[in-house]
């Protein structure tokens, strides 16, 4: 038997069903792996061995009674912006360094109902603002494939943990690419579901019209299982859509012959790496071998995506982050002269540089005299980007494109250059603007051994189509089976 920590959730489910190991034994193997890896990779903000072993014991008792689902007893990581009742949840920030939620996020409730095992809270860019996990108050996560490189962000801990065998699967959140980018950079599979498919109740808000929770895993079958668990309507989130979802596992073995993938030219003229170009060409020929047709098309407003996003997201953030005032929870400055002074000092001490930058930008864009020129203009451009996608889907079943213009970059390379950092998300942001489902999947490696993940985008609530396409691709290829040399 292979090492337990190297197995997918689906394989671990078979181990449990065959009584070859208990959930406590599996969880113990992951906790030992975490202990061995954390010094190098730093995927976690908080590891919760007691909670994990409690949950594993409970899972074993359920399984012994013949109860439980396909994920019962499987260990996972949760991004540090999803509330776990009684466990510190910091959102990667000093301002929440001591926050212990009095309730569970809806996705955490689903994890408990299913009987999965929570290993801990995964590292992330502070308030999910970043593309590299370097803005975390708790220090950067390193890319398991090359420890000098960033893992992508903001869900860098969630992706690195799965890549390094520190969790079988994980949850991330994606506001402008924060699941797909780290999944691509760490050689794992991740999906941002349609906006409204998964409840945001208990997810610490960054930009509420863009944020969406989704899974990261080693392969597509695991992704389908987690989607089955977390998708669904939640009355506690008024943007969650009342709609029954498909059984995503029913699409894993469906043929894809006759399907059409769209190639938007605006995505491909941004490629900054011959490695990505090569991997795109190789992936295209695999799909063609499976009977998929390709059609070139155009998304004319794609180039305005970054500019519009970096008005809309910071505007929403400046409003959402007003709640960190040193009154209800989190950090409060020790010295102050008045109420306003208390707010200003608390926030100055509690927030890091990127969060302050975005609060400044968003506050400016919403301030009197600038609203029309910035926020309103960006909201109109958002309509045009959404229309472009709608038109594109008249000609294809899904869109095929890169996840990022190049593979992972070096730690420190872009941290002092906000615009270069923002441009990392050029291929992922438009998907959030339109609220579409998007998936990143391992498609190959650069010449120096870094994973390259490509992206598939589908119309609203067509996650099943992405599962179908990527599962077919993974049956033909072995990129997702490669493990980093740790």
């Amino acid at each position, binding site marked *: 038997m292979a090492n337990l920590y190297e197995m997918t959730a689906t394989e671990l489910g078979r181990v449990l069903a065959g009584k070859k190991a208990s959930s406590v034994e599996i969880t113990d193997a992951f906790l030992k792996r975490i202990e061995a890896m954390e010094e190098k990779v730093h995927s976690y903000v908080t590891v919760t061995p007691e909670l994990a072993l409690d949950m594993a014991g409970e899972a074993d008792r359920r399984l012994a009674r013949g109860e439980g689902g396909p994920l019962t007893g499987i260990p996972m990581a949760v991004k540090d912006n999803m509330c776990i009742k009684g466990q510190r949840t910091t959102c990667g920030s000093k301002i929440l360094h001591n926050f212990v939620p009095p309730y569970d996020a809806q996705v955490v409730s689903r994890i408990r109902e299913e009987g999965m095992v929570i290993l801990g809270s995964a590292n992330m860019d502070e308030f999910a603002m970043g593309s590299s996990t370097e803005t975390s108050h708790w220090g950067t996560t390193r890319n398991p494939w090359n420890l000098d490189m960033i893992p992508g962000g903001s869900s860098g801990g969630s992706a690195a943990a799965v890549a390094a065998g520190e969790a079988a699967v994980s949850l991330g959140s994606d506001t402008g690419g924060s699941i797909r980018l780290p999944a691509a950079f760490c050689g794992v599979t991740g999906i941002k579901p349609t906006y*409204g498919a998964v409840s945001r109740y208990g997810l610490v808000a960054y930009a509420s019209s863009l944020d969406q929770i989704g899974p990261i895993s080693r392969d597509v079958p695991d992704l389908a299982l987690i989607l089955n668990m977390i998708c669904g309507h939640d009355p506690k989130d008024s943007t969650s859509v009342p709609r029954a979802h498909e059984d995503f596992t029913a699409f894993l073995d469906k043929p894809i012959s006759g399907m059409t993938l769209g190639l938007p030219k605006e995505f491909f003229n941004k490629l900054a790496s011959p490695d990505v170009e090569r991997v795109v060409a190789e992936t295209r020929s695999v799909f063609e071998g499976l009977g998929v047709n390709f059609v070139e098309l155009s998304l004319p407003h794609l180039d305005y995506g970054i500019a519009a996003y970096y008005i809309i997201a910071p505007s929403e953030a400046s409003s959402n982050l007003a709640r960190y005032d040193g009154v209800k929870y989190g950090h409060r400055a020790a010295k102050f002269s008045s109420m306003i002074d208390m707010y200003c000092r608390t926030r100055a001490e509690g927030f890091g540089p990127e969060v302050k930058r975005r609060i400044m930008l968003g506050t400016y864009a919403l301030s009197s005299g600038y609203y029309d020129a910035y926020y309103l203009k960006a909201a109109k451009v958002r309509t045009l980007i959404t229309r472009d996608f709608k038109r594109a889907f008249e000609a294809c079943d899904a869109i095929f494109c890169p996840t990022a213009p190049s593979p992972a970059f070096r730690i420190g390379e872009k941290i002092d250059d906000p615009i270069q950092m923002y441009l990392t998300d050029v291929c992922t942001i438009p998907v959030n603007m339109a609220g579409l489902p998007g998936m990143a999947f391992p498609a190959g490696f650069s010449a120096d051994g870094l994973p390259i993940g490509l992206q598939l985008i589908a119309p609203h609530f067509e996650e099943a189509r992405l599962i179908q396409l990527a599962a077919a691709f993974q049956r033909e290829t072995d990129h997702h089976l490669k493990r980093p040399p740790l």
Partner: protein
Amino acid sequence: MKITREQVDYVALLGRLELEPEEKEKYMGQLDDILKYMDMLAEVPTDDVEPMAGPVELYTPLREDEVKPSLPVQEALANAPDRDGTSFRVPKVIE
């Protein structure tokens, strides 16, 4: 420059952020660069385009006005930096 030192001071106050002088200098330059990048939006014709607030059709979910259990006061206060009985304690607001 698109943004002045006075505007940085004003926006920092609106955002309730006490910034050091060198932070203000840094953000002034960076916000200027970012806002210059945003200028590209001006070239997109949007006169008859409706703005979009979010990707889903928002509706107002209605329900019966029933009392349901909510967070007990002490649990809601448990994370407060300063509290007194059943209240959050804050600095004096009214002079």
